[in-house]
């Protein structure tokens, strides 16, 4: 028999690859434009949050870092940096708060998802209102947003976060329970 540490490592890599691919696909296929900011609404967050709730902060953080950022490379390359950092932190935070090896309580999971939504909304706002305009002074490539557009994106991002969190909660209710059994 192969050593269990090696099997575990390969299992985690497989899970990471699966959820990163699903987050990539979820972000790429379902894109609903947000006129006010020029950004778009997507469901990639569902898989980031679900990965974090089912497999913990490391997997959640890495899925957030890789999957949605790869999707931004297709069509919205300016947002890769913001997406990788915001969604990576979001996945890690949801996993840190809402994941325990023996299965977390529903209240804790809901709190984790609320934290994830908050990080999503606040993270993009900070990047679009302050970080990108500052970076655009030296690198014009990042001159795609300003504080007005960032304000206009708060509501769609909030809606995206809530919608994704509700679906991720449903996924956790079914698959998380099965895992802990």
């Amino acid at each position: 028999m192969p050593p269990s540490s090696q099997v575990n490592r390969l299992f985690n890599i497989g899970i990471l690859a699966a959820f990163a691919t699903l987050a990539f696909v979820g972000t790429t296929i379902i894109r609903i434009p947000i006129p006010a900011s020029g950004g778009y609404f997507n469901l990639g967050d569902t898989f980031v949050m679900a990965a974090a709730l089912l497999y913990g902060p490391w997997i959640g953080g890495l899925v957030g870092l890789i999957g949605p950022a790869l999707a931004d490379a297709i069509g919205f390359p300016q947002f890769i940096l913001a997406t990788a950092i915001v969604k990576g932190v979001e996945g890690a935070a949801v996993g840190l708060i809402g994941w325990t090896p023996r299965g977390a309580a529903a209240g804790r999971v809901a709190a984790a998802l609320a934290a994830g939504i908050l990080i999503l909304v606040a993270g993009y706002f900070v990047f679009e209102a302050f970080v990108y305009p500052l970076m655009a002074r030296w690198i014009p490539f990042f001159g795609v947003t300003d504080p007005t557009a960032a304000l206009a994106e708060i509501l769609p991002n909030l809606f995206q976060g809530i919608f994704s969190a509700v679906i991720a909660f449903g996924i956790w209710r079914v698959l998380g329970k099965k895992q802990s059994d």
Partner: protein
Amino acid sequence: MKWQQRVVVLILAAVPALSGYPLTAAAGEILPGLTWGWGAYFVAVHLLLALTTPSRLYGNILAASALITLPVVFGGAALSGLMHLTGVGRPGGPQAYSPHYLALLTSMLTVIPLGLALVASIPFQILEQQVLTGENGISRAEKNLLMVLRVFNHIVHDVIPATLEVVREEWPRAPGAGQARRRPSPAGLIRMMTWLGIAVICCAVQYIPLWAVEIARLPERRPRRLQGREQPLQHLKPPEKHPGRGTAACHRLRK
């Protein structure tokens, strides 16, 4: 052209889109929103794709790019127009938002085909075979790569096509749906999306525990000084999938 060369060429071609240079240097406009830089880049990328990609694949790439791009661009423009008509849109009306959507259309119809061609250029199955048929065993990094390739292949070739088929057949308002057309309620939509998410995750991860054991069992690469002293390793074939080992949700998805 070998696939490795094609991948290198396409990665080099993607550098301007990912870095912004030298596109931002040619900022003069052909039309409001369409700069000379992006116009020339669009033409150059499609010329390159037409020369380096088989024509049938290029056609498929163009069709997929249009399917991804058009809803975003035209949906966004239509929403902006509606918002303008109702008085809540950007000040300035179409003059203000049209250049943005033209720029978005150009960049998406340039970058998406390039990305799709890049992914399509990598022969994942051949890579997997090459890793598996190494005569001196498999290194740890190659085992990790093997797992990633296998999962990616499975999702792209099995899970997503099956999901799209189910969505097309089961979506409540689809014209060809087997059930009566009805307008889904918000709760029904969330329920359906949740079910779809569960089914997709189950399908995507169902073989991973099995693959982890199988790949871990593959012989480790031996140090150079010991290579060749024992029998060469048997050439290994990728394992068959096990149709009986799925979850109920996945079977339903396949059905």
